[in-house]
């Protein structure tokens, strides 16, 4: 076996081990169920509240939107883990073994993508049981959902890796949550985007979050619900194009940024960061 192939294989195993760890320790297990649980409770609460005169309950509109938004959680997880593991020396360890970065990134993609898909299932399966009016009876719905989630992951994970490479500490990294929350507010997740001012709609359509929500709504809502969207259409072509541009840009940019970050890693950098972190605690 060639060394690079061995590294990819080791990375695959690494991803599975990390996934198992994430679902077998109490704190992380709690996190896997807490957020889906809370959002499901909200969706259940709103299951009978009609949205305007659209004829759809708010809960029904909300569930697919939140599902789409949760795909982007992979991006946040990716950037958080990269920053944290740079701080604790995991990345440097990867750099010290042959083709270690290749294995490390393979592992990260497997564990983050796998974890995200598992989280989506944890949210969606009970959601289908408690929220009325979702279209789940035909194959087309599931195929649409599959390509939106898959393309969504390819569009967001490299972006997460780029973000994770840019922050020096886990604390600074926490700042990306602010713009992310802002983006959620304008991306038509909790309220249809068509009720926002035109310029905000324009901003939202630059980012993948809006397209993820649109894509998952198109999969799970009846076609008549498209009337609430921009242009009254699910815009599949545009969705694929927008997510595709993010995917290509991310896949081109991420290796360059990651290589630059990895090159800078050294033991004294890790030690210095650790000292700074300890000073903050102490």
């Amino acid at each position, binding site marked *: 076996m060639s060394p*690079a192939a061995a590294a990819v294989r080791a990375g695959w195993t690494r991803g599975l081990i990390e996934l198992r760890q994430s679902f077998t320790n109490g704190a992380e297990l709690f996190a896997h169920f807490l957020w889906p649980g809370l959002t499901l409770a909200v969706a259940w609460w709103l299951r009978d509240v009609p949205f305007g005169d659209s004829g759809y309950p708010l809960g029904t509109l909300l569930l697919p939107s939140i599902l789409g938004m949760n795909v982007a959680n992979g991006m946040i997880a990716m950037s958080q883990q990269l920053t944290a593991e740079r701080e604790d020396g995991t990345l440097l360890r990867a750099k010290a073994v042959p083709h270690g970065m290749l294995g490390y990134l393979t592992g990260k993609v497997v564990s983050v993508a796998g974890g995200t898909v598992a989280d989506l299932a944890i949210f969606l399966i009970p959601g289908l049981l408690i929220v009325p009016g979702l279209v789940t009876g035909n194959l087309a719905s599931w195929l649409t959902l599959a390509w939106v989630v898959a393309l969504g992951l390819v569009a967001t994970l490299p972006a997460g890796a780029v973000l994770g490479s840019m922050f020096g500490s886990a604390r600074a990294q926490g700042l990306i949550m602010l713009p992310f929350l802002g983006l959620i507010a304008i991306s038509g997740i909790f309220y249809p985007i068509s009720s926002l001012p035109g310029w905000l709609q324009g901003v939202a359509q630059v980012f993948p979050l809006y397209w993820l929500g649109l894509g998952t709504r198109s999969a799970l809502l009846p076609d008549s619900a498209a009337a609430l969207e921009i242009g009254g259409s699910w815009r599949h072509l545009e969705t694929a194009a927008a997510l595709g541009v993010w995917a290509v840009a991310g896949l081109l940019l991420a290796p360059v940024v990651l290589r630059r970050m990895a090159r800078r890693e050294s033991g004294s950098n890790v030690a210095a960061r650790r000292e700074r972190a300890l000073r903050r605690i102490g």
Partner: protein
Amino acid sequence: MNTAEEVVLDVEGLRMRYGTTDVLREVTFRARRGEVLALLGPNGAGKTTTIEILEGFRMRSAGRVSVLGADPAHATEDWRARIGVVLQSWRDHGKWRVREVLAHLGAFYAGYTTERVPRPWDADELIAAVGLTGHADKKIRMLSGGQRRRLDVAIGLVGRPELLFLDEPTAGLDPQARREFHELVRGLAGSRETTILLTTHDLDEAEKLAGRIVILDGGRIIADGTAEELARRITGEDEVRWTLDGQRFTRSTRDSTALVFDLFERHGRRIGELEVRRSSLEDTYLALVRQAEGAAR
């Protein structure tokens, strides 16, 4: 073929500059295959910077560096497979189990196996070799400092490297763990397969483990040789104490034998409680560092 004479580490005129400060100046030394070399010096002498340059983790400002025949600044993944790295502080993989992480990191070396050297080192064998049997299924964050350090060494060894870098391997270990660690390194060195470069600020450790000691101070090499050579190079002052007619005397001298002979010749049996304390290598080391710092000022 004379592999014992092969130079695996060749550093010449190494310089590291941050802004206008030189943290390394004209650092030059070599190590041959199978040798254990200690880079000894006080904190801040430039030991970690030197070792990180050799590991390929840090770019140098000037000088020539060859590690296993390649420049670490432009090293390939194949070169990386031939060296083992143990850094000063690791706290990664806390959720992983000991055997799990060794098997995982070992898998990266599977493509580098040869007929003479099977790679990677089997995880369980390696765990036994570093004395962690019984902790193989423990989570890494549950290990004590000494156990964690031994795991770090095991990870450094999992690819059966030709050259092993150990940066301050015993910092923070209790005396018992330190002694066990010394045994481990001596065992490795005994096989003469692995060349070892270790940094330490502990002279006693350098003397115990290394065949040759390079003393680094203020970014320069101030001495290079075996422990005996170093002791000979600067004869420290011995301390001689005695009593004469009930009165105590203490004197420092470079030639204690002559002083004692002289004492007996002059005072004969009136000399009592004679005590000669030879200058230790530690005194030599401190004298060297003091001298170098005096010269720099």
